[in-house]
């Protein structure tokens, strides 16, 4: 699996890593699924296996080619000629190349599936027996509701829920993410996946899936394409292609009496060659590979879709519901400003704030240190002396944290920061209350709150522990606020050009929500959102015929995830959420929803582009084959031989060879998907029509001409 940039620690709440993520997605875009030419060779045996007519019949277009190959082969045996045999061989190549496209697409998934399968088979489970003793059983023998003990260094034997304990878990086997995550019983982070490894501590897991239905099993089935069903759009396209095939069949079958009337009865070989060249073999051959590759691209981005239908729906999404936290803003509030009391000075407040936060490893604490470093030039690391200070950790009762610094003279400076009321009360308790300062800080705090920020107060007490000679002071307020991820506004602008509306979901009050919305450029806001509100919003959007995508991780998100057309559950989320959604993001990165939409669109564009290309190809093939067929009776048709192909045989053979080779040439494109950039529908249509429509008309003229330059030297052809 893909290994992402390594990190030292990955706590449950998400660190600023996502800043890089946004940038990575911007430069990387969709696509870039590597294709190695060697894959063609590796997949050849599978391609030959697929020559079985029972496999072929599932693809009406290629089945016609298969039947045509049989017919031409028989006719070449009955009345052998170089021409007939060459046509027969190249028709078989056409079928094999089509199989190859599908085999290569499937092969890419199979390698991943094999790696996954290994994690599953040799795991030993330590099952808790009712008496409390532990027995060792193979993982495959586990049943629903079995309880297993997993300790540091052991592999979790199956999907389940932690019922006791807390542990760090290495999920790299599933996610490719090397940083461990924290899992604990109760709450939204209790689910664990079979095949992952416990790194520390001991947990008891209740198994929640039956054998064979685990997450890994489903993943294997998905990446192998075993459960692949044609998606609605793929079916519609297949119908169109089948109908085209039928009409071409009629055109060719009825051509024979017309040719007979004109005195130019055609051989079976030529008629089959014409038919195969006309029917949309290019798209027919690549259609299923495009679908498999689309799923595969998602898997490469660590997103698992439960069905191709979901991927297709992602392309149609017109409303994205995005959680504010983690998607639009960083997961945690960050210090953005210091408000010193009059007469204190910001530098002094910065000193206090920094000292009180140096040992504070919470994201808020770190952000205060960073702010002091960037805004006031203070050292971001504690000096050796500072490190000796006594850290006072945050507790739920004091709602403060800070530090006690013992000076050279033995005096102690106690600095505290925390909830405004707590810090002010602490200062009051230490000595005389300063009502003016208190009122000022409360006013500033009020103001910060109204902006949507979170105020912290900061103050210090200096002295030798005796109440009377203590000096204490209110330092001021620290403003924490949501910080919008860089680049997110540009991303929303791109989505808007693609016709996608973004709605920010947040538990914040409307004032705060609107402030963030304005900054991030999101189209709409759902503030103070309850799960019911989310569900109602989705229903309302859907009633207007719009498709909605959302991400979620909590159990209370489950109904909305199920209602949304595309529901991406975070892998870190609860089992209920994962069951309700139709995609799981293994990286638990809500920003990825945007990439998922692009992959869905890219898959549809690739289908449309190759269909257009395939149909447009027919024009050149007519110009090659029709003069070749009827030159004998109507020499004037030589005027149509614009490619100046050498002989009728070389013309027909060249067209057939081109028809076969173009399939191989387009396999990389089908697997990678056409280049997709977010742009308006008009611009995108114009571009694709030009490239694949006009290109589809021109390319075969050149290709057939070039092939003819070679085949004309074959004895019996030229």
């Amino acid at each position: 699996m893909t290994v992402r940039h390594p990190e030292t620690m990955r706590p449950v709440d998400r660190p600023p890593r996502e800043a890089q993520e946004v940038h990575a997605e911007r430069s990387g875009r969709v696509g870039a699924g590597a294709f190695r030419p060697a894959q063609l060779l590796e997949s050849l045996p599978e391609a030959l296996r697929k020559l079985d007519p029972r496999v072929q019949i599932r693809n009406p277009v290629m089945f016609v080619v298969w039947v045509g190959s049989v017919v031409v082969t028989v006719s070449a045996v009955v009345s052998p000629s170089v021409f007939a045999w060459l046509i027969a061989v190249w028709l078989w190549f056409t079928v094999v190349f089509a199989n190859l496209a599908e085999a290569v697409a499937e092969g890419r998934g199979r390698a991943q599936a094999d790696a996954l399968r290994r994690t599953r088979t040799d795991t030993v489970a330590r099952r808790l027996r009712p008496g409390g003793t532990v027995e060792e059983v193979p993982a495959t023998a586990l049943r629903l509701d079995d309880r297993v003990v997993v300790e540091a260094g052991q592999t979790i034997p199956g999907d389940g829920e932690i019922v006791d304990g807390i542990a760090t878990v290495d999920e790299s086997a599933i996610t490719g993410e090397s940083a461990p995550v924290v899992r604990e019983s109760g709450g939204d982070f209790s689910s664990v996946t079979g095949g992952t490894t416990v790194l520390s501590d001991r947990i008891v897991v209740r198994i929640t899936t039956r054998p064979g239905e685990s997450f890994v099993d489903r993943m294997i089935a998905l990446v192998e394409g075993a459960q692949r069903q044609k998606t609605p759009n793929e079916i519609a396209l297949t119908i169109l292609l089948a109908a085209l095939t039928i009409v071409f069949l009629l055109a060719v079958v009825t051509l024979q009496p017309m040719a007979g009337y004109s005195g130019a009865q055609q051989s079976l070989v030529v008629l089959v060659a014409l038919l195969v060249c006309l029917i949309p073999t290019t798209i027919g051959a690549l259609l299923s590979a495009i679908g498999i590759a689309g799923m595969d691209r998602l898997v490469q981005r660590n997103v698992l879709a439960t069905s191709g239908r979901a991927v297709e729906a992602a392309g149609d999404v017109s409303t994205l519901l995005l959680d504010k936290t983690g998607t639009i803003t960083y997961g945690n509030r960050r210090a953005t400003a210091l408000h010193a009391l009059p007469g204190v000075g910001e530098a002094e407040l910065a000193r206090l704030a920094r000292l009180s936060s140096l040992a504070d490893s919470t994201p808020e604490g770190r952000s205060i240190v960073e702010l002091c470093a960037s805004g006031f030039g203070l050292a971001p690391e504690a000096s050796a002396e500072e490190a000796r200070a006594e850290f006072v950790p945050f507790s739920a009762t004091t709602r403060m944290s800070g530090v006690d610094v013992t000076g050279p003279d033995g005096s102690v400076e106690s600095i505290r920061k925390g909830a405004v009321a707590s810090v002010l009360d602490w200062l009051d308790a230490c000595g005389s209350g300063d009502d003016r300062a208190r009122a000022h800080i409360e006013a500033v705090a009020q103001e910060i709150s109204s902006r949507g920020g979170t105020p912290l107060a900061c103050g210090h007490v200096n002295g030798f522990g005796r109440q009377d000679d203590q000096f204490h002071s209110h330092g001021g307020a620290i403003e924490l606020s949501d910080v919008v991820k860089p680049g997110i506004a540009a991303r929303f602008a791109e989505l808007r050009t693609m016709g996608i509306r973004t709605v920010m979901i947040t538990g914040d009050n409307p004032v705060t929500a609107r402030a963030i919305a304005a900054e991030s450029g999101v189209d709409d806001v759902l503030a103070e959102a309850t799960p019911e509100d989310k569900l109602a919003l989705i229903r309302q959007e859907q009633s207007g015929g719009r498709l909605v995508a959302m991400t979620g991780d909590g159990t209370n998100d489950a109904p909305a995830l199920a209602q949304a057309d595309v529901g991406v559950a975070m892998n870190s989320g609860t089992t209920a959420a994962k069951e309700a959604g139709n995609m799981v993001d293994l990286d638990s990165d809500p920003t990825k929803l945007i990439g998922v939409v692009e992959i869905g669109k890219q898959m549809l564009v690739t289908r449309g582009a190759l269909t257009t290309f395939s149909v447009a190809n027919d024009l050149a093939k007519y110009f090659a084959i029709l003069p070749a067929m009827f030159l004998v009776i109507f020499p004037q048709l030589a005027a149509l031989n614009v490619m100046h192909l050498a002989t009728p045989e070389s013309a027909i053979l060249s067209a057939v060879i081109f028809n076969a080779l173009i399939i191989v040439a387009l396999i990389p494109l089908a697997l990678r998907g056409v280049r997709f950039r977010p742009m308006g529908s008009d611009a995108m249509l114009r571009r694709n029509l030009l490239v694949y429509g006009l290109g589809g008309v021109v390319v075969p003229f050149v290709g057939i001409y070039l092939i003819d330059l070679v085949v004309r030297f074959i004895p019996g052809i030229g």
Partner: protein
Amino acid sequence: MGDTAAGLLQLVALLLALAAVWRPLGDWMARVYTSPTHGRGERVIYRLTGIDPDSDQRAGTYAVSILAFSLLGIVVLYLVQRLQGVLGFDQGHGAVDPGVAFNTAISFVTNTNWQSYVPETTMGAVTQMIGLTVQNFVSAAVGMAVAVALIRGFVRSRSGGRIGNAWVDVVRGCTRILLPLAAVVAIVLLALGVVMSLHAGADVVGVDGRASTIALAPAASQEAIKELGTNGGGVFNANSAHPFENPDAVTNWIEIFALLVIPVSLTRTFGRMVGNQRQGVALLGVMATLWGAMLAIIWTAEAHATGPAAVAAGANLEGKEVRFGIPSSALFANSTTSTSTGAVNSLHDSYSAFGGGGTLLNMLFSEMTPGGVGTGLYSILVVAVVAVFLAGLMVGRTPEYLGKKLGRREVTCAVVVVLAMPAVVLLGTGLAIALPSTGGALGNSGPHGLSEVLYAFASAANNNGSAFAGLTVTGPFFQTALGVAMLIGRFLPIVAVLALAGLLARQPRVEPGAGTLATDKPLFSVLVVGTIVLVAAITFLPALALSPIAEGLS
């Protein structure tokens, strides 16, 4: 004034006149099909026939109504022809031959008006008036009804597949659109010298001193609906080349105008009903582009005399009326084959290879440039559906047209409509040309002979009705095969179109956003033009290579 200048003047006048009428007529037709109130006369009809005019039919019921009505029409028309000797006013023609009656009944009910008989010596006044003329009105009204039903499919949101009332649509098409317009056109034509008579003929003495009888007919009234309803079945064998049907350049111009006016204005009706005029204009652009391009081809081909006779005469006038000349003939020929009219003021069989091939290609475009009344609109809408399906994918969304998603079932209906005609034409032509008996029916050998057969089946399957006259079609094979071709070419698409309308009406209507394919812009028109040309080219190029192309390149 030179020939070309006169032709251009007519062309400009025609375009201006159509542009002037487009808006009021289109808006009027939209009102006709959306108004909730019934006229007093209409109420009488509903009461007499026991129709509930306020019931809203599902697609299935709508289709059954249309099919039953048409079947009834065929039976009645067949009986009228067979019994015209009994009914009186038959001008002594007696019962019509069963083969002719079968073919003609189908032909007029399907709006084809293919005539495998000589009207002057076959059809009496009663058959003309209560049989053929009635069908000229109602078959046109049926076409419009189906088109309107399809529009409703796009417009309505979650209607449970209800697409209006077939009986009301047909009645209103007759009473509020066709009858008033036909009355006006008939009076104008009458005033300009078109014959209107119940006498069988007038006895005259010719310049050579020999007495003869010149056939007369109620032509003016027939002529009006013949063109307005894109029917094309003339009361005289020579059709609009006959001086009693089409005496001069002015009536010729009026007839061309009349056969184009409803199909063209229906694009406005469409735009108005879907609430976006530019949607209609985009389709009008497609029609105008192809109509103009084909006119240029036919006109140019005819203006350049080829062959020893034409070169000696200085112009390719064989089969054309001298009083019309080449431009008016080309204009008429292009318009009659690009609508499903099939009336002729010249013999397409005598056209040059490319000129005649042009009229053939017009029909192979599946009659939607602008096509027959109603049929043209629903045909082009279905091609638009196919174009949207292909191109819609290229903008990265499940394709949708006018706010309706195009899925498996919608696409199935659309391809049935698009491919029915090519299948019938190819199979019919292939079968006919393979039969040994066909050789004797051909007026010409070689590529032109094949053109004649291809033209006949294209004309029948597209419900055009014009003929490449060289082919003798009175034998049982052609009477039957062409009759079947007309039936399939008419009713298979109608059933599929109504099924499509029902599927669309069931869906919610989504307001188009920035991410959806814009279907009201020139780029979309280009796309639809491309789709029409490509579908015709890839299905018919082999056949055309052996007929007009081989002939024209020699």
